[in-house]
């Protein structure tokens, strides 16, 4: 029994610590006593702006980063399982490039400074991401089946196309280039709870579907024939999971930009440590992905404060060596 529960305990502990760090650490030092007073609704004693900083900046950001990490890592695990490809990441079939293209297109219009004007970029990124997945899926389809190789090839080809169009538009643009680069590096994040509330429904649907399909992903690891012979409706399940994972990724990307590596590394580490059973791998990846991105975000905010690094740089710089280290000392060679 404890062997089943321990992985959850470890990852949840990690997530709790990361969340605590994320709320406690920032460029403005807020003593723990003040942090506690503010969180329990009393006025702070030393830092007068503590309440604003905690409630309007740190908590919403912590929740947004947590959700983004969970979405990227969870859909990364799902994509690796769907494509039976250890190199698959949440962006494999074009979510990132589609979102980028959508964002750039939205930026080429001068929106009024209003709620809708501010929502235009994340909304366009979201729609661009889903539209890309839809196009890639349609291109890859052969009759009733969607061969994985077709899907990956169509995804890679269409992504290159969308990225090229994005670069072209950026080169042609005059004023909004800075905004485009800011989006690429860190999304269109805004303070407050707006972004969290906007993406929550999609994450709940997308990640919920993934969590319910751990068993189906286990079956798919044995190949389409065996999965179907064991009772799985392969085409339908794969489409459903593809939509769910893309939905979660698209929602995460719309506000946070494309953050690399979390969706690739975290599921692999979970697989190495706790085995390949997707019924366990998916929830563990969600939890650990949330914690990992939170930790990366804390680093991004504090290493060079007041300068803030794009979090994707931190995930790659800190994540890649750590992953290689884990991989080197892994005893079970055929973990994949």
């Amino acid at each position, binding site marked *: 029994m404890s062997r089943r529960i321990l992985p959850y305990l470890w990852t949840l502990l990690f997530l709790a610590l990361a969340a605590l760090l994320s709320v406690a650490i920032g460029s403005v030092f807020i003593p723990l006593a003040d942090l506690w007073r503010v969180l329990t609704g009393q006025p702070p004693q030393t830092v007068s702006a503590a309440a604003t900083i905690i409630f309007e900046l740190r908590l919403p950001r912590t929740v947004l980063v947590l959700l983004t990490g969970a979405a990227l890592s969870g859909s990364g695990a799902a994509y690796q399982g769907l494509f*039976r490809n250890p190199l698959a990441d949440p962006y494999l079939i074009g979510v990132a490039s589609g979102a980028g293209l959508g964002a750039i297109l939205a930026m080429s219009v001068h929106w009024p400074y209003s709620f809708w004007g501010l929502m235009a970029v994340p909304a366009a990124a979201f729609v661009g991401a889903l539209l890309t997945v839809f196009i890639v899926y349609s291109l890859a389809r052969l009759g009733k089946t969607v061969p994985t190789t077709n899907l990956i090839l169509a995804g890679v080809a269409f992504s290159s196309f969308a990225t090229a169009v994005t670069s072209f538009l950026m080169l042609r643009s005059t004023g909004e280039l800075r905004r485009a680069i800011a989006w690429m590096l860190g999304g269109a994040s805004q303070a407050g709870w707006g972004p969290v509330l906007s993406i929550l429904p999609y994450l709940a649907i997308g990640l919920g579907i993934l969590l*319910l*399909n*751990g*068993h*189906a992903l*286990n*079956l798919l*690891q*044995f*190949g*389409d*024939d*065996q999965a*179907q*012979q*064991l*009772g*799985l*409706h*392969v085409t339908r399940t794969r489409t459903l999971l593809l939509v769910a994972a893309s939905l979660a990724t698209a929602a995460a990307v719309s506000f946070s930009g494309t953050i690399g590596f979390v969706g690739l590394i975290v599921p692999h580490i979970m*697989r190495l440590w706790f*085995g*390949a*059973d997707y*019924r366990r791998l998916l929830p563990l990846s969600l939890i650990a992905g949330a914690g990992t991105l939170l930790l990366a975000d804390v680093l991004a905010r504090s290493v060079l404060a007041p300068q803030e690094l794009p979090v994707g740089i931190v995930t790659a710089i800190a994540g890649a060596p750590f992953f290689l280290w884990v991989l080197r000392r892994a005893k*079970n*060679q*055929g*973990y*994949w």
Partner: protein
Amino acid sequence: MLKIENLSVSYGSRSVLANVSLEVNSGEVLALIGPNGAGKSTLVRAASGVVPVEAGAVRTNGDDLLSLPPLQRARFLAVVPQAASLPPAFSVWETVLLGRTPYLNFLGQVSAKDEEISRSALAKVDVLELASRRVGELSGGEQQRVLLARALAQSTPILLLDEPTTNLDLHYQIGFLETVRTLAHADGLAVLIALHDLNLAAHYADRIALLVGGKIKAAGMPRQVLTPELISEAYHLPVRVVQHPFADVPLVLPEK
């Protein structure tokens, strides 16, 4: 029992199976033999619903299994594939539990009964002690047994096996087929097994069907199918059939 009726399959314009009909009774092992490319694997795949068929039906007690959704079909018919390229990270136990897929609720929860059935399936094929090992650490013979246990966990009246002994050494081949025959006879399973070794087929099958170029050329008792004429013609190789020196089965020997 398993009744395959007039099954036809084409890949594009090329006919792979033409009007194949076969019957396997409960408690009987039917070996499907034939040269490479005759359509043995296609027959197993088509009968299990993973290759679309042009015409024909696969019945047990009257129902056409091919018209059922996969989940329903998997309660009647289980397949043992070749143990090539299994995902190595799964444990034996996780792998065998997948056989219970057709009986799980939509949350995919495994009940105590599912675990009991899976455990007894492992015991039947003698790999219970491997339960916590990873599939990637097992030998080919052990992997093949795990796949058999998974199919047994499906609790189906019909079992299809696609050349399960191809990659096994002699010891494992004999042991595996021994187990399959015992199970078929003891539990009343209808077993269709594609084999390419004619003498193993002669030894372990109750009946044999010879598939050549997508058509059934002959079906019957081993002695009726393993004749020099039929085999020489099917394999384009002159053979002689002699009496096995210490068993009551025919023995096929190439003339060269």
